C-alpha cells in the first residue's frame, strides 16, 4: 500500500468514526439513560427508523431540518413512553416488548414513509473544520455535523448530571435498588417511564441524523441495526455516558472500514467488512462479560443481568 493510499484510508477512517459514530452516540446515550433506570429497551432500533422517517418527512414538509430533528425526537419520545408505560405493567417482559417495538416502529416508518422516498428534503448543516487545508479530501473529511458537537456536549452533561444532580441520583437509585428508592418515597415506575421516554427522544434524534445528514436520504434499508448494537455498546461503555462517546467513535470507525477500503479501490469482501461492527460488538461482549458475576457498573435492577 502506497503511503498516500494509507493516509487516504486513515483519513476516511477518522471521518467515518465521526460520521458513522454520531447516530451510535445518540442511541447509546438514550439506551444508557434507560438502562440506568433498570430497564432495557431493544425497541430503540424501531425508534431509530421511525425517527429517521419523521425527521426526513418534517424537514421536507416544513423546509427546516432542525424542525425535523425535533419532530424525530418527539416521535421517539412517544414510542419510548409506550415502552415505559406498558413495561410497568406486571409480568410484561421488557426485552420481548422491545422486539415488538422494533416490528411496530419499522412498520410505522415504512408505511408512513412510502411517499417520502422520492423527494429530497433540506439537509442538516455541517461545520467546515477543514477550511485551513487545500486538499479537498481533508476538507470533506473534516466537515463535521453540528449534531455531533451537541452529542458530545450531551455526553458530558449526562455524565455530570448522573453524578451531581438530584435527578441523576434518583434515577440511579431506582435502577440499582428499587426497594431503597421506594423507601425514600420515589415511585420507580414513574422514574423509569420518564427515563425510557427521554431515551427514546435521543434515539429519535439519532435516526434523524441518518436521514438528514449521513447517509442523508430516507429509504427502507437506512438502518443496519445501530439501535441494537447500541445496547451492546452501552455494556461496553459500562453504563458511563463519557465512555459511550469513545465507544461510539470506535464503532463508527469499525463501520467505516468497508467504505474506506472502497475509497482506495479494494472492493473485495464488501459485505464482510461491513460486518466488522457486529464482530467487534460480539468480541467486546465475549471479553467483558463473565457468567459468574455481573459487570461492575451494571444497574442492579437490569433484567440483562438476572
Amino acid at each position: 500500500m502506497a503511503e498516500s493510499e494509507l493516509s487516504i484510508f486513515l483519513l476516511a477512517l477518522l471521518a467515518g468514526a465521526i460520521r458513522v459514530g454520531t447516530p451510535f452516540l445518540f442511541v447509546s446515550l438514550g439506551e444508557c439513560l434507560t438502562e440506568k433506570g433498570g430497564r432495557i429497551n431493544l425497541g430503540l432500533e424501531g425508534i431509530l427508523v421511525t425517527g429517521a422517517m419523521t425527521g426526513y418527512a418534517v424537514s421536507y414538509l416544513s423546509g427546516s431540518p432542525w424542525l425535523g430533528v425535533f419532530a424525530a425526537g418527539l416521535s421517539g419520545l412517544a414510542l419510548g413512553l409506550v415502552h415505559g408505560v406498558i413495561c410497568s405493567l406486571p409480568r410484561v417482559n421488557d426485552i420481548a416488548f422491545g422486539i415488538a417495538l422494533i416490528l411496530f416502529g419499522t412498520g410505522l416508518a415504512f408505511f408512513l414513509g412510502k411517499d417520502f422516498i422520492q423527494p429530497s428534503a433540506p439537509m442538516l448543516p455541517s461545520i467546515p473544520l477543514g477550511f485551513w487545508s487545500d486538499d479537498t479530501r481533508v476538507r470533506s473529511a473534516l466537515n463535521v455535523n453540528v449534531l455531533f458537537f451537541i452529542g458530545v456536549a450531551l455526553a458530558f452533561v449526562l455524565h455530570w448530571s448522573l453524578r451531581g444532580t438530584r435527578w441523576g441520583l434518583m434515577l440511579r437509585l431506582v435502577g440499582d435498588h428499587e426497594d431503597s428508592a421506594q423507601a425514600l418515597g420515589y415511585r420507580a415506575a414513574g422514574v423509569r417511564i420518564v427515563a425510557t421516554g427521554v431515551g427514546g427522544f435521543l434515539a429519535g434524534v439519532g435516526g434523524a441524523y441518518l436521514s438528514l445528514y449521513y447517509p442523508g436520504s430516507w429509504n427502507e434499508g437506512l438502518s443496519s441495526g445501530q439501535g441494537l448494537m447500541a445496547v451492546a455498546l452501552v455494556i461496553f461503555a459500562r453504563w458511563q455516558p463519557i465512555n459511550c462517546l469513545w465507544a461510539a467513535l470506535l464503532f463508527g470507525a469499525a463501520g467505516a472500514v468497508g467504505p474506506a477500503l472502497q475509497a482506495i479501490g479494494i472492493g473485495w469482501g464488501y459485505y464482510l467488512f461491513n460486518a466488522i461492527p457486529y464482530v467487534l460488538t460480539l468480541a467486546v461482549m465475549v471479553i467483558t462479560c463473565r457468567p459468574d458475576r455481573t459487570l461492575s457498573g451494571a444497574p442492579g435492577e437490569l433484567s440483562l443481568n438476572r
Partner: protein
Amino acid sequence: MLKPWLGRAAVLALPALPTLLAMLTTAVLFILFLLIQGQPAWQAGPLVFEGAFGSMFAWENTLMRAAPLMLTALCVALPARAGLIIIGGEGALVLGGLAAAVTPLWLPALPAWPMLIAMGVAAMLAGGLWIGLSGWLRQKRGVNETIGSLLLSYIALAIFRHLVEGPLRDPNSLNKPSTPPLDSGYQIGVISDSFYVHWGLVAGVVTCVLAWVLVRYSVVGFSLRIVGGNPRTPRMLGLPVDRLVLLTCVLGGAAAGLAGMYEVSAVQGSANTALISGYGTAGILVAFAARHNPLGIIVCAILLGGLEASGGLLQRRLGLPDATTLILQGILFINLLAWEALTRRTLDWRLWLRGHWIAAPSSRAGSTEVSHG
C-alpha cells in the same frame, strides 16, 4: 342460580382471555390507525380474511408461508423453555438454506432421497451450530443471548451475502445473484396438484408435534421446566443445566436451518437473497403468541401466515403499502405482551370462580372455603 357447568367452562376459557382480548384490541387499534390515515378501514378487515382464508388459493398461499414460520418459531420457543430469549433465527435460516444449496455441488451425484436427507442434515447442522453458539456464549461466557444471537444473525447474513455474490455465485445468475440452481431431481415438490403446498408444511407440523412430545412428556422436557423456572433449583438437583440449554439452542437452530432447506429446495431452487425475507423475525412473534407451546405454534403460524398472505391483496385492492401487515404484526405483538399483565388476575378469578360458582351451590361449600383461604 348460575349453572356449575357454565362456571367450569369459564374456568377453562380464562387462560385464553388475555390472548382473545389482545386480538380484539389489535383489531380495534388497526382499524383506528387506518381511519386516521383516511383509508377504507371497513374493507380492510374482510380483505385480510379473504386474502388469508377466503379461497383454496388463499389457503395454499397461507400454508406455504406458515410452514417456515412453524420451524423458525421453534427456534425461539425451544430455548425459551430453558429461559433464553433467542432472536437470531433469520441467520440460522439463511445459513441452513445455503448449506442445503451447496451440498449437491460438493457431494457426488446421489439418488434423490439420500441427497435430500444429506441436504437436510447439512441445513440442520448449520442452523444448529449457529444458534448453539449463542447458547454456548451465554452459558460459558455470560454473553446475553438475545443480543448475541442477533449479532450472530447479522454476521450470518453478511457471510451469506458475501458467499452468494462472491465465491459461490453462479456466473449465469446475472441480475439476481444466486448459487447454481438445484438439479430438478433434488427439488421438493408439492403435496398434490389439488393441494398446491410443498412438503415443508408436513415437515413443520411433524417437527412441532415432536417438539411438543419432547417438552411435554420426556425427561428432558421435565428438566427444562425446572431450568426455565429458576436458575438455582436445577443446580441443586444436579441437572446438567449447560447441556440442557445448549440442547434447546441446537434443536431450535436446526429447526430454523431446516426451514431454510425447504425454502431453497421447494421454493427458490437455489440460495439467493430472497431467502432473507423476515421469516426469522416473524417466527419470534409466532412463538410469543403461542406462549412457546409447540402445538400452539402450529395454529399461530397459520394465523400469521394468513396475515402475511393477505398483504398482496391489500396492496392490489386498496393500494395500501406492503408495510401494512408489518404494522399489524407490531400492534398484535405489543397487545399480546401487554395483556399478559392480566394473567395474574385471571389466576385470582379462576380461584374465585372455583370457590363461588362451581362449588358453592353444593354442600361442599365449607371445604372450598378452606381451600380458597
